[in-house]
């Protein structure tokens, strides 16, 4: 008997091609394509006064040079506001190529198409764009101050302002026994997938159709956007995501200017055109995230129970808002984590700055929200002199409170209602894993050795698997091989493996016989995309639904063939047999043959489906009314709301007493994403997420100068952690199934990243003995904080002495 595949650490189907150099990423396609390069704004805010392309045409091999003037009416429109929201009162998006104004360094101004990228870059270097520079707004503090405007017609740089409140926060604050105010800062970071964005388009003149490939997190989204701007019917354009070298959020925004311009140029020139983003372009013309200023006011009782939580957030959305205000909405709602404050209000302002746009980056506003909440928990514990886990426990939503409705609207426009989770159990596991109760002794021993160590903690809840839907298509070919398609894309999550596991179980076939395609609009034109930790939940349940349809059809056909009752049949390893009479059997491949009545026998097996084979009832039509030929089926999954995963992390850090260097000694994770399809993959997601969190907490930041130049736009200066900076991650799991979907699964993609800044701030604070209110934190910043504390202490001692 075949064992179930779900729940097992099955090795990945993707690996054999990827470890041998046979993966096919965007730039690996189209060797014969023309190459595009872009002239981008060197100024953060300027008026374009002229563009001189004359010299560029002198370069041998240049095929086309395009400016805004060359764009037709559809292409000349501002890019779409993908997620409109009533609170987004002043949305602004860029043009495919800038017309009169640029609003950040890196904005595309001129497109050059040439024989190869070397030539395109040579020509781009000869193009002279004249600018009149304008005053620049850099950083969220300057945006809030609003002395200068990013967009002349946007008052106070405010793109959006939103307040959500549950209960009477002011009244609850007024009668709280204790109150604290905590100001917090988080800086910019970015997804930084190892492969940048890229687009390759082939226009077929004879067929008047487009095939395009994009390194995207949504091929259906790109297809629809390009169809709209190029005026092509959907039937005449297909978009594929090939192997994608990481996404982490940045590739869900679409259409990027290049995603429109490359296919547009391919059609105009009648030649394949390709653009592969280089690393500097990725830094200055894709997207960043994370920067916020926050102010938390909290009222609580003697037990540390939060009676009132009042949070203000000033969110930097960069120069444009194509992705709307999803990030600050997530901050405002997911800030609550596993806790139930008596009353809650969050007010945010989403503000324009003359810097790269802000769209979701793994965690998508949650790291900031969790930072606010967890810093608050630690502050309450410090104020009351209580253990930090005790204060958290006091505020936990309990299993018996589930489902728990916070009374807020989540990022999908639906209620923020937790479906399941056992937070006390998770905390108990975490305390055991890290040895929470033994830490005091460890610290004492370390102190005796002259070492400073600290223990930190952070908890989060993550809404995963947001709608609207995903679909699956399952087709059993006459070979018995099963081909599965789902429309969302893959950027390394192992979908080919995980979805094959699901279909193998649901259909009753061997895992090896299931082959999954993702992100190809030719195979599944209805899809949303891979973001918000949604792929396993959405497409997992969709392919399961499709497999069920196919299974039922297979049993029906087999029942006819075996003259049995479908209810008496079972499928195992691709063979359908009568329960208890295994010799009465028919293979799924034969059923596939029978499912498609044939006129012509294309091979021996196909003979069984032809008209004189005697396999059909002559009194019935070959394809019954309401039925379809072929052993295939479709299924869609569309949930009423998100499913909420959760986790708790703890870390032990050591800070150097002299240099203030910060070293992570241990990092522990307890993670609950419901039923795990493949624990190997889930753990991998957690490891990678934590590493990105470590980068964001200790190393990565976008260093803009006062004129809006990004000073560290390369991997030389933007410090993505190497193997030498990330420790082994210790993990433990809880599997609290989601009651919302048939498979009981919750998302896992972003989890690892979410609480890391909060956890490391907590640990560093614990080591140092003073509050850490700003992340990321470098050794020099920690050293400076120490110096300020020492100097303030010396000053107060002097003042005392003077009295």
């Amino acid at each position, binding site marked *: 008997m075949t064992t179930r595949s779900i729940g097992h650490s099955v*090795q*990945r189907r*993707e*690996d*054999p091609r*990827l*470890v*041998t*150099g*046979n*993966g*096919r*990423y965007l*730039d*690996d396609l189209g*060797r014969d394509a023309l190459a595009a390069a872009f002239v981008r704004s060197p100024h953060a805010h300027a008026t374009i006064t002229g563009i001189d392309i004359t010299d560029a045409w002198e370069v041998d091999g240049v095929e086309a040079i395009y400016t805004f003037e060359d764009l037709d009416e559809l292409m000349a429109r501002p890019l779409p506001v993908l997620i409109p929201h009533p609170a987004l009162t002043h949305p602004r998006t860029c043009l495919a190529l800038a017309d009169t104004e640029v609003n950040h360094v890196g904005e595309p101004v001129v497109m050059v198409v040439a024989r*190869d990228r*070397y030539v395109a870059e040579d020509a781009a270097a000869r193009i002279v764009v004249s600018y009149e520079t304008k005053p620049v707004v850099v950083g969220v503090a300057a945006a809030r101050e609003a002395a200068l405007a990013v967009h002349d017609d946007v008052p106070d740089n405010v793109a959006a302002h939103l307040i959500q409140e549950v209960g009477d926060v002011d009244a609850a604050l007024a009668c709280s026994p204790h109150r604290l105010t905590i100001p917090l800062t988080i800086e910019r970071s970015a*997804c*930084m*997938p*190892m*492969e940048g964005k890229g687009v390759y388009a082939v226009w077929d003149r004879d067929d008047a159709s487009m095939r395009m490939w994009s390194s995207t997190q949504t091929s259906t989204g790109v297809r629809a956007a390009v169809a709209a701007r190029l005026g092509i019917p959907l039937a005449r354009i297909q978009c594929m995501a090939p*192997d*994608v*070298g*990481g996404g*982490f959020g940045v590739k869900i925004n679409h259409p990027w200017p290049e995603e429109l311009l490359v296919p547009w140029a391919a059609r105009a020139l009648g030649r394949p055109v390709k653009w592969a983003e*280089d*690393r*500097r372009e990725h830094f200055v013309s894709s997207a960043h995230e994370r920067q916020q200023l926050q102010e938390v006011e909290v009222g609580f009782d003697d037990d540390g129970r939060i009676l009132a939580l009042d949070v203000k957030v000033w969110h930097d959305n960069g120069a444009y808002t194509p992705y709307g205000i999803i990030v600050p909405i997530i901050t405002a709602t997911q800030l609550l984590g596993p806790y139930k404050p008596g009353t809650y209000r969050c007010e945010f302002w989403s503000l324009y700055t003359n810097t790269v746009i802000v769209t979701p980056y793994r965690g998508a506003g949650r790291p900031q929200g969790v930072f606010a909440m967890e810093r608050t928990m630690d502050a309450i514990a410090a104020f009351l002199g209580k253990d930090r886990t005790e204060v958290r426990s006091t505020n936990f939503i309990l299993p018996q409170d589930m489902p728990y409705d916070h009374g807020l609207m989540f990022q999908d426009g639906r209620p923020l209602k937790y479906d399941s989770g056992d937070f006390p159990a998770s905390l108990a596991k975490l305390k055991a894993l890290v040895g929470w109760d033994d830490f005091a002794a460890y610290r004492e021993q370390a102190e005796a050795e002259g070492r400073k160590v600290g223990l930190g903690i952070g908890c989060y809840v993550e809404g995963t698997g947001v709608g609207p839907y995903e679909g699956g298509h399952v087709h059993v070919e006459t070979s018995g091989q099963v081909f599965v398609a789902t429309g969302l894309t893959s*950027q*390394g*999550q*192992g979908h080919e493996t995980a979805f094959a596991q699901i279909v193998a179980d649901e259909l009753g076939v061997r895992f090896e016989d299931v082959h999954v395609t993702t992100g190809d609009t030719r195979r599944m034109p209805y899809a949303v995309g891979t973001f918000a930790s949604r792929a396993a939940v959405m497409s997992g349940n969709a392919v399961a639904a499709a497999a069920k349809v196919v299974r039922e059809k297979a049993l029906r056909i087999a029942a006819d063939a075996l003259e049995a009752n479908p209810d008496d049949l079972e499928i195992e390893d691709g063979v359908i047999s009568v329960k208890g009479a295994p010799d009465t059997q028919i293979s799924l491949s034969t059923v596939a043959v029978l499912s498609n009545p044939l006129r012509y026998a294309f091979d021996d097996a196909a003979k069984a489906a032809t008209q004189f084979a005697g396999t059909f009832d002559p009194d019935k039509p070959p394809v019954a009314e309401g039925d379809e030929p072929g052993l295939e089926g479709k299924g869609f999954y569309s949930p009423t709301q998100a499913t909420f995963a959760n986790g708790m992390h703890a870390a032990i850090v050591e800070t150097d007493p002299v240099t203030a260097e910060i070293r992570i000694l241990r990092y522990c994770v307890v993670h609950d994403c419901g039923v795990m399809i493949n624990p*190997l*993959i889930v*753990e*991998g*997601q957690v*490891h*990678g*997420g*934590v*590493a*990105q969190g470590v980068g964001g907490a200790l190393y990565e930041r976008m260093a803009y100068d006062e004129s809006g130049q990004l000073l560290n736009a*390369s*991997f*030389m200066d933007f410090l*993505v952690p*190497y*193997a*030498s900076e*990330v420790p*082994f*991650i210790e993990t433990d799991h809880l599997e609290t199934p989601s009651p919302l979907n048939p498979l009981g699964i919750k998302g896992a993609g972003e989890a*690892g990243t979410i609480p890391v800044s909060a956890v490391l701030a907590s640990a560093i604070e614990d080591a140092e003995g003073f509050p850490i209110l700003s992340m990321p934190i470098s050794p020099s910043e920690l050293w400076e904080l120490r110096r300020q504390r020492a100097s303030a202490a010396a000053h107060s001692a002097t003042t005392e002495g003077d009295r």
Partner: protein
Amino acid sequence: MTRITVTVDGAKYSDDVEPRTLLVHYLRETLGKVGTVVGCDTSNCGACTVHLDGRSVKSCNVLAVQVDGHEVTTIEGLATEAGLHPMQESFHEHHALQCGYCTPGMIMQAIDVLNTHPDPTEEQIRLGLEGNLCRCTGYHNIVKAVAAAAKAPGAAAVSSSKVGD
């Protein structure tokens, strides 16, 4: 244009290249060996790592003309008819890759680490891979895969260099 003759993955090639052509672009565009990828252009990420005469180099930091008369091994030259290279096998077995973009360079560098340290400590592995970025795995399973490969016979060997010998 300059004429170069180079052995890549055991086969000899002669091509005219522009003096400014980077090795990685020669491999990808002239030879069609797109298994070696570009991640950063500044020699920091190591995605383009190949072996030049048996030692790892970042092929975005080497000119094609510099490899004239030399021998290059890429990720595409590791597996043999007998199967995957032990390092490739170990990466698969230990889930040491997700998106796979850093993997060709990471595997080439990992083999180089074992050439230097046949029985490496965790620290030697981590320091040896410092220069190759991975954004997906947190290095957790990469470090484990390299340590496990060190125990496998032939993990430091590269088959195609034998062909060239």
